[in-house]
């Protein structure tokens, strides 16, 4: 049995290692045009900032792949021959498969802005983008970033670390406030400005101006303000990368359509991770998940399904984390930017604006947490949510959830006092 996995990101690699555990004798091949070996995509920023070498972003030593007999092919897949069960590779001909997992990840969005294909205009998603950023940054003293998500603020931090002046253009009234409640979002606005980064809010990009040689020289906003710059970072989010399957019989929606065992409509072809769209079985919304941990979790289940096990993906209780400059953020359970019907939000923020906690309850039961500048135990928060503990119970035991390093100043007393007052 030969299983081929397209993509060596976290989903593809997790599927491959899981499959190897379950099927020690199968032939497994990973194909990627982006890199010879798997690397950690979230670490791209640390290469650029000089915190880490590229070598150090690879979670496995190179000998691991030989030891585990996971064959690596460095090539781009340009087509799928479904009848003959073969992949068409760009340089090295055809690759037959018995089972195929598509784990091609996502692509940066582009919204058809005039000038979006000029030199010096780019997103940040893969090693190709990083190469481009190395070159573009060389000639840049002022950069404009358009789109205020996680990649946008990472890009701002990266360029800032090389002493490039950054202007951050966001559509929203406050950073990432379509996802974060306004208080947490406000803390981050403050950080951005504290770093000396210009934050221009509620402003859309109108066009990117050509300097006459096909390279960017400025951007113009919808209010006809012109900002001179040598680099434009476009970071308005990502979409599933379905290029490979678009003109095949494999069904796509926004992503590659799969059931909750990652099966596409074609037998022996599977898709998982950022490129997949999991079709809801009960008529609810389809699921597209594009963060690191869901890619890993989906990859594990996909590996089991490829091995022939009857496993289904259970998304579980949502969690995520990020770091905005020096401010760490962790979230457990789903919190939307505005309180939903029946939700009760309790919020505490330290006067320094460097620590905050949000506790969300429904019907008196804990539903979700946001922690800013405070580390919290995943296991404890998840258990409380799963057990539907009362908000009173959670406040009474909040210190059990703390995961800050030893000797850090603890804020539980103030937090609990403040949240209890709000509760009453």
């Amino acid at each position, binding site marked *: 049995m030969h299983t081929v996995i397209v993509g060596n990101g976290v989903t593809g690699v997790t599927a491959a290692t899981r499959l190897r555990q379950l099927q020690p004798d199968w032939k497994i091949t990973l194909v990627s045009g982006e890199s010879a070996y798997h690397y950690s995509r979230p670490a791209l920023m640390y290469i650029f900032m000089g915190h880490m070498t590229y070598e150090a972003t690879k979670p496995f030593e190179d000998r691991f792949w030989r030891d585990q007999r996971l064959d690596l092919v460095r090539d781009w897949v340009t087509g799928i021959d479904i009848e003959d069960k073969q992949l068409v590779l760009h340089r090295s001909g055809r690759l037959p498969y018995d089972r195929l997992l598509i784990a091609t990840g996502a692509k940066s969005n582009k919204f058809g802005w005039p000038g979006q294909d000029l030199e010096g205009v780019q997103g940040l998603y893969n090693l190709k983008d990083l190469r481009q950023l190395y070159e573009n940054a060389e000639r840049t003293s002022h950069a404009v970033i358009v789109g205020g998500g996680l990649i946008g603020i990472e890009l701002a931090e990266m360029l800032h670390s090389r002493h490039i002046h950054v202007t951050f253009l966001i559509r929203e009234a406050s950073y990432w406030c379509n996802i974060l409640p306004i208080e947490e979002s406000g803390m981050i606005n403050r950080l951005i400005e504290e770093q000396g980064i210009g934050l221009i809010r509620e402003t859309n990009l109108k066009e990117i101006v050509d300097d006459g040689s096909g390279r960017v020289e400025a951007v113009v906003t919808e209010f006809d303000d012109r900002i001179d710059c040598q680099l434009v970072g476009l970071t308005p989010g990502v979409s599933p990368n379905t290029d490979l399957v678009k003109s095949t019989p494999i069904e796509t929606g926004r992503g590659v359509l799969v059931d909750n065992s990652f099966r596409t409509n074609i037998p022996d072809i599977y898709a998982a991770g950022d490129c997949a769209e999991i079709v809801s079985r009960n008529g609810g919304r389809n699921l597209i998940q594009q963060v690191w941990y869901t890619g890993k979790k989906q990859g594990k289940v996909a590996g089991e399904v490829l091995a022939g096990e009857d496993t289904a993906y259970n998304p579980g209780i949502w969690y995520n984390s990020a770091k905005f400059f020096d401010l760490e953020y962790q979230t457990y359970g789903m919190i939307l930017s505005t309180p939903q019907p029946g939700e009760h939000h309790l919020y505490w923020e330290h006067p320094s604006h460097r620590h905050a906690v949000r506790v969300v309850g429904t019907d008196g039961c804990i539903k979700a947490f946001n922690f800013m500048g405070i580390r919290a135990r*995943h296991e404890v928060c998840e258990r409380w949510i799963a057990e539907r503990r009362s908000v009173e119970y959670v406040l009474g035991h909040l210190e059990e959830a703390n995961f800050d390093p030893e000797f850090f100043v603890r804020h539980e007393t103030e937090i609990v006092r403040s949240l209890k007052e709000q509760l009453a």
Partner: protein
Amino acid sequence: MSTPPAGTTLIDPETISYFYDEEADGFGEPASAAEAPRKPGMMVSAGVIGLGFLVLVVSLLGMPLSGAWTPFLLSFGLLSAGTISYVWFTYKDTVPGIKHDGVMFGNTTHRGAIAWALGIALTGFYVVLYWWPEYLARTIMLVEPLSQALAGQPANQWFLYGFLYTMAVVLFGFRMFMRYRHNRYHIIRTISVMFFQLVLAFVLPQFLRALNEPEFYFSYFWPLKYDYLFPGTVDYLVNSPGALGSFMVFWGVICSFIATPVLTYFYGKRWYCSWVCGCGGLAETLGDPWRHLTPKSTVSWKIERAIIYAVLLLIILTTAVLWVSSTSQGALSAISAPLKQWYGFYIGAVFAGVIGVGFYPVLGNRVWCRFGCPMAAVLGIIQRFFSRFRITTNGGQCMSCGNCTTYCEMGIDVRAYAERGENIVRSSCVGCGVCSAVCPRGVLKLENGRSHGDRYPGSDKPLGAFSTAISKGARVYGDRDGYV
């Protein structure tokens, strides 16, 4: 069913055109990144440091040195003041947080020409210090007034060494305060190493000399300070006038055989290696800029285990042979004397000093602690099997970025554990806490648990785990070979 003909290109041609050999050509130093703006305060401070060097050179070359304070105060005063103010102006206006921008690009921090030059200079200093101290005669004269003031006796090369060592720990300790001012763990443990170096390893031994007592370092124990349990040292201490010498022997025995296992059981190896020890103190202060240089490969881990336990066996053997020799009227004396000399030369001087510190800028700041120190080996065995200490991994939050592994000065692949949601329980971990500090997702926490039995599967049976490790190498929990 429609099938694309062979070679049909479905994906973006621009994507296909991408090929870059990231393995061979990498993502190194930017060709011409904008320089960090140099603040006036930093320039002035650099000037003060330069002036200090000038005074130092002039004093050493040209001035009659007669134990006067002026050249000492002027040279070391300017050097210290300049360093402190340089660090202050570098960090004072920055936002508190991790300061690793450009570490991998830096000539000094990433094995550039400056790093090699520094390595050669440091190594050279150790070689001269150990084997040609006569060339340091004038430098020793420079610190003479301090030796007279503290010990009432002339300075020698070891006083000079202790003084420079302590100065480095204090000055670069201040750098740690500025860099980690958002992190109380680092502030407190830096205060601790500064205190132990300054008071127990520098001022107190000199006071003891002033009182005509043996020069004794209360913060170093056998087997690191190997000769403290050699029969010659014990005889000398016990026979020195007054009760203090006997207390020193008692202290050494208690610390080596009782305090070490007990404290390690409760707090892990870190109570010594990154809180008390002078070698650790220098590594955590002066050595901090090079902490990422230690190799992280499985091969380096195998080499580490082979060497460190060999050194431990060697010092146990040497000590035992010396005791047999001294209690049996010279039996084994044919091997005991050369063994003692050999250990002192190759391990005590060459390995711990010349390589251990001299190679900081090239091999990282914990070469000796990781590959050689027998005290670290003992503490490590206790930590690994009989301790409550562990680094806890926070559920599924790890995204495998590798900052923890990169900045682990002991070469532990922290990420390999964190990404699998396992606690890190490794004999070499000195508990510096930097993995936890650099983690951008809040995944790692150093903890002393309530028992030793909940750290990893099987850790409630330490003897079993210990015997497995001995019989099968480290192929038990936590071996990267078993990662799938």
